[in-house]
């Protein structure tokens, strides 16, 4: 384990923690954004028609790779498995679960002795969470896919472009408000640009940092 003092999230330089404390009262705010860094992001590739591959993954993270494009399985509170391509998935874990999942996947896929790959990309991206009653409008300013509830809902994901930045986009349900919460996973180098764009696009609705 790396000493935590050494770790610096892609958006750490924006002082978001201090802003979140100052903007704690989010009532009446149109858009709420936050950085959720250091979730485990493990890229796996393999042949989903090979039962050994599926079994090895199930054994490692208790989830089967979804075969329906643009869907996610699992719970945000623990581990999720996101479809990226017909032979590619992303395991998303809580920060504390990343190392265990990575080791389990590497071990079980090695035992299965089949052509597959497991690559840790935890550091390559950060997660920007966008919620609040105007979240969908804000993202739609920069994203051409249809985010209407009839077309995009909890459990769905997409790799697409938000304001010129490639992202993995996922929607989670907010059980209290029934309003969508979006997770944007940009590559870390793009995170500042995307964050600044989001804040700018949200300004007319009122925006606070969580």
């Amino acid at each position, binding site marked *: 384990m*790396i*000493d935590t*003092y*050494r*770790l*610096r*999230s*892609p958006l750490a*330089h924006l002082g978001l923690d201090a802003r979140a404390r100052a903007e704690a009262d989010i009532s009446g705010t149109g858009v709420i954004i936050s950085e959720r*860094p*250091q979730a485990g992001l493990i*890229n796996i*590739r*393999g042949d989903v028609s090979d039962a050994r591959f599926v079994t090895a993954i199930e054994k490692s993270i208790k989830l089967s790779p979804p075969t329906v494009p643009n869907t996610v399985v699992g719970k945000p509170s623990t581990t999720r498995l996101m479809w990226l391509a017909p*032979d590619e998935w992303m395991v998303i874990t809580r920060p504390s679960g990343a190392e265990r999942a990575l080791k389990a996947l590497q071990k079980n896929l090695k035992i299965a002795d089949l*052509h*597959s*790959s497991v*690559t*840790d*990309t*935890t*550091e*390559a*991206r950060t997660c920007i969470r966008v919620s609040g009653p105007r979240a969908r*409008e804000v993202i*739609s*300013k*920069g*994203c*051409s896919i*249809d985010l*209407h509830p*009839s*077309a995009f809902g909890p459990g769905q994901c997409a790799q697409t472009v938000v*304001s*010129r*930045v490639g992202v993995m986009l996922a929607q989670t349900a907010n059980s209290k408000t029934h309003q969508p919460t979006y997770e944007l996973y940009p*590559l*870390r*180098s*793009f*995170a*500042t*640009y*995307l964050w*600044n*764009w989001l804040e*700018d*696009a949200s*300004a*007319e609705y009122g925006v606070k940092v969580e």
Partner: protein
Amino acid sequence: MTQTHRLTDGGRIDRDRPIDFFFNGRRYSGYEGDTLASALLANGVMLVGRSFKYHRPRGITSAGTEEQNALVQLERGARTISNMLATRVPLYEGLDAASVNCWPSHNFDFMAVNSLFHRILPAGFYYKTFMWPVSAWKYYEHIIRRAAGLGRSPMEPDADTYDKMNAHADLVVVGGGPAGLTAARSAAIHGARVILVDEQTELGGQLLNERFDINGHPATDWVADIEAELMAMPNVTILKHTTAFGYYDHGFIGFLQNRSNNVAFGEDGRSRQRMWRVRAKNVLLATGSLERPLIYSDNDRPGCMLAGAVRAYVNRYGVTPGNRHVIFTNNDDAYRSALDVKAAGGDVACIVDLRTKPKGELVTQAIEAGIDVIEGSVITAVIGGKRVRAVEIMKLNEDGTGVTGTVQTITCDIVGSSGGWNPVVHLHSHSGGKNVWRDEDGVFVPGDTLQSEQVCGAAAGSFSLQAALNEGDFAGIDFASKLGLPTKKPGAVPKTSSDVAEEPWKLLWYIPTTKPAGQRGKHFIDQQNDVTVTDVQLAAREGYRSVEHAKRYTTLGMATDQGKTGNIPGHAILSAALGQTIPETGTTTFRPPYSPVTMGAIAGRYVGDFFDPVRRTPMHDCHEKAGCLWEDVGQWRRPWYYPADGESMQDTVNRECLAVRNHVGMLDATTLGKIDIQGPDAAEFLNRIYTNAWLKLAPGKCRYGLMLGEDGMIMDDGVTSCLGENHYLMTTTSGGAPRVMAWLEEWLQTEWPDLKVYLTSVTEQFATLQLAGPNARALLSEFTKDIDLDNDAFPFMSWKSGTVADIPARIYRISFTGELSYEINVPASAGLSLWTDIMIAGEKFGIEPFGTETMHVLRAEKGFIIVGQETDGTTAPGDLGMDWIVSKKKPDFIGKRSMSRPDMLRDDRKQLVGLLTSDPSEVLPEGGQIVAETQPKPPMTMIGHVTSSYYSAALEHSIALALVKGGRARMGDTVYVPIDGKTVSCEVVEPIFYDKEGNRIND
């Protein structure tokens, strides 16, 4: 100034909310609900500008988007917007507008003298006069620009913001008139996601201008009801004051939304305008129709307007445009204008109808209302310059080619003319749809469509209100069923009693006068571009038979209004001159935008800091704190060099270079592309992609590779390391990373799906800190306990994993500087803290951070190439003297076959050489052209160009790399680089300048 032309009641204006505004510096007053045009007319202001070419006085001609003359410069300074239509600018408090295109003032125009020389300003005048001699254009240009300008662009950056919104719909309804409203409603009650868009500030379309009834009540009440009903539906979005300006492929429509009533300013921190990018499954075009004028002599005098505009001002704005109105028509509909003026208490002098014995219901109503109807007659002259004072009327002869009888002079100040109505088929045309000529009333109606689109109401040539209501309602249901939505009872179709039987229009495109065209007054077809009937006839005589050519030659329909009113009469007159039918002549293709779109809206927020994404490395803050200057490499922002206070770039780079050569330097190399390659066929894959041999690279070892395109030209290069069995890490150039990744995937997915290889981009997983210089080992050893840095244990071109400052790391011993060098890869989040620690610990070793410029100098001293600098897509390995890396043994690799193409074997190909200037301090410009012998002046035969050029502090001499024809045979020769009046002589040398034996790299 009082509102002399304002009616005491009526109209959709709010008389309790007066608004003060300025036009050409004078203060006027209007009401909430006015447009600038209606408020000007209310104040008796008709003269609003000067025409483009002749600078004739011009007045308001319409009440909408088809306006040709009433272009204004809105506001001043940074917020000024040119060429806004007064008919489309809602009045707001303090509005400040001025006429465009008049100098020094709209009332006294200096350039009106052009009018006197109209005989030398015919069609094609500019082409004929100013295009020869070509060199003289620069003398003419500024005079013409001054005379022919249309508004001014602001000199300051735009003070407002613009943004974009993406939206999706089952059905987009363009046009909020009767057809659009019924369609939106009937589709929406079935559950379709509907977006209804209208360019006006209110829904209702033409109903706002009329005194029609629907379901027994005023039509505008019905509009209000249906708007309320639609607003209550969650599946309906209504966008008012929003123009659907373009209809593109696959249901893609562009909207330009004015987000504040105050069109020159944003409000409430919102953008001033919003560009909507809408993707529609289905589109309904209910865009209505635009009236076309009759083309009579001097039909551009202020006071000449469209008949429909006359009643729009009366009914919608409570303004009588003039004191005495004449209506000139070929149809029944224009009688409504006379009836409405009369009903509002205005004065109608007469209706001039070019038809003989008109007897429609509206004609009867007009006669019953006491309006004088002069049938079978036309206007032959308009009296008055800055304002219509009277018209002359004569009988039309039987075949419509001339006039007969006595002249009747009628005093009036408004002529409202109507030549019928043109369906607005622009968007249909944008989408790839064809338009079909309908001979009976002389209109183009929408024909076949390429997309899931329908047109209904007046836009489809159905000019009655009931037809619009019926067609809209039906279309909405039709779309709903096409979407597979469950059928519901939509309720009864609204009914109107306003439709009456109307007689056919009589088509007469050119209204004759007492003399042939051009000899008595001017018949304007396109008022904004000053195109007259004689211009079009001249074009025909000069052989312009294609409408597309005639249009460009005469500039007909090429003004900001894009010929909304003038195109059809223009084409008809061209056809007549060519002696062919209108369908034979054809119509021009309408292209987006339907009406002008501000550049700001196209850019949206992608200006300034948002112009393009900036990619930051994990160590960005360190570099910023160290005061570096930045270089953009692709989207990456990389440190360029780190000047001390007041230090010049050259001094800085010299210092950084010497630090690396003599002590140690550190470079942020995070941006290099990194691709993780796994699978049993990984080595075979690399063997096919790279030019050299890859089957025997052992774990722990690194190898340089060159990647070619199939054409044998260099595409990318980098070091690939064997991480373990069937596991490799490829590095690519910073800018080339995405392209290389796509290239590799293409081969795997398309040609070689049998190869078991998986690729994953890991560029951003790691922060890469490059330590270079003789002290690198000593410095690094302070940070690692578990990696043996000894030269034998950890030689050049190998890598090891372990920890650096207790951070898991991979260290690659590779070098782009020619020095002992380690590339430390750590998890990206830890990069910044490690960089900081190494900089502190490195002080005693003389560490300096260095940027891309120093890196470039150091590698050039070693003759290492940069793909994209020494190569340009026509450079092969042999050209760079890199045959050593091209395998002769491998049977095949990408690009191999092209190596033996005849062109590759030419001995005069450009080859990489080094250049040393005779003056060691002279640094050649990159891109400088190289010649073999100097001539007194150009042309000289170019034999190559400089690809890289720097001052080398280590050598105390400038150095350059160059591509020179047959360069390797020219070693020792002198060549010349002419730059700015002098010629620099250089010696051709081997392309390596420093440590030719390569000892330092292996130390």
